């Protein structure tokens, strides 16, 4: 399994907001572990989807020069269970961005409609750990923004529909 919890960006306004989607598929193995007879998307992985959407938004805002790490989940409130075959839309917005970190809030909905059913409301804080050392030890190079993430943004910008 890959640690990627969004499938693509459908909207990206640099330094402001982004919308990414994820399809929940029965083929995903982890869905069958906790509740085998009733697969549901784990809520913590929904938080991760928002964290990845928001993390790329915050990272891009400073040209991926910072090591953007999830430091705090102010709140994550869930309103409904998510089942296979559903599409999640993560809408994230940067509330504050500074040298040392950022705060982001967002809403997760079912489907692409901006007024679709709300799955969750999430508030996150990221730390730019090079600026906010707090005694942790980590590599000097930027280990956070791997090709996996930067390619997501590239795909969005190069949205080509290739018909055969």
């Amino acid at each position: 399994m890959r640690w990627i919890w969004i499938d693509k960006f459908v909207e990206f306004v640099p330094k402001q907001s982004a919308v990414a989607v994820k399809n929940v598929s029965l083929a995903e193995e982890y869905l069958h572990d906790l509740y085998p007879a009733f697969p549901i998307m784990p809520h913590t992985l929904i938080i991760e989807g928002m964290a990845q959407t928001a993390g790329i938004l915050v990272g891009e805002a400073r040209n991926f020069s910072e090591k953007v790490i999830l430091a705090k989940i102010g709140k994550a409130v869930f309103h409904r269970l998510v089942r296979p075959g559903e599409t999640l839309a993560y809408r994230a917005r940067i509330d504050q961005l500074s040298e040392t970190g950022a705060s982001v809030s967002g809403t997760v909905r079912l489907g692409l409609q901006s007024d679709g059913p709300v799955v969750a409301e999430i508030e996150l804080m990221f730390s730019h750990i090079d600026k906010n050392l707090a005694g942790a030890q980590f590599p000097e190079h930027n280990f956070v923004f791997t090709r996996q993430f930067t390619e997501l943004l590239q795909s969005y910008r190069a949205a080509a529909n290739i018909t055969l």
Partner: protein
Amino acid sequence: MAISKDAIYEKVQGVLVDALGVDEEEVTPEATLREDLGAESIDFLDIVFRLEKAFTTDPAKPFKIPRGELFPENLPAMMSDEQFVKDGRITPLGSEELKKRMPFADFAEFDKNPTVQGAQNLLNVQTVVNYINSKLNG
């Protein structure tokens, strides 16, 4: 239009309740941010962000808290500098340095017994209120 110290206190209280997940009753003027209210590194950034939002009345002229002005950075580094701290007590040079970095804090209690713990206790709710007041009302 000047904002009263009481109004500032109320807003600061609201910010701390939201940022730290504590009850309103816990946010008293003497409550220390670290010890009493459980604030950690990331919380200080959260508090700064929320204060900036709470005290911005005109989006064209946002209320900004310059980095390190309210919550001095490098305090841990300072605490391990022998010039400023010796045997858990703050030296006169250290006291001077603290007063320079946190002119809005109330040093009365600290001066009676200048320990490292005393220095950490300087960061309490009243200190935050004093800081905001000095920024807004000059």
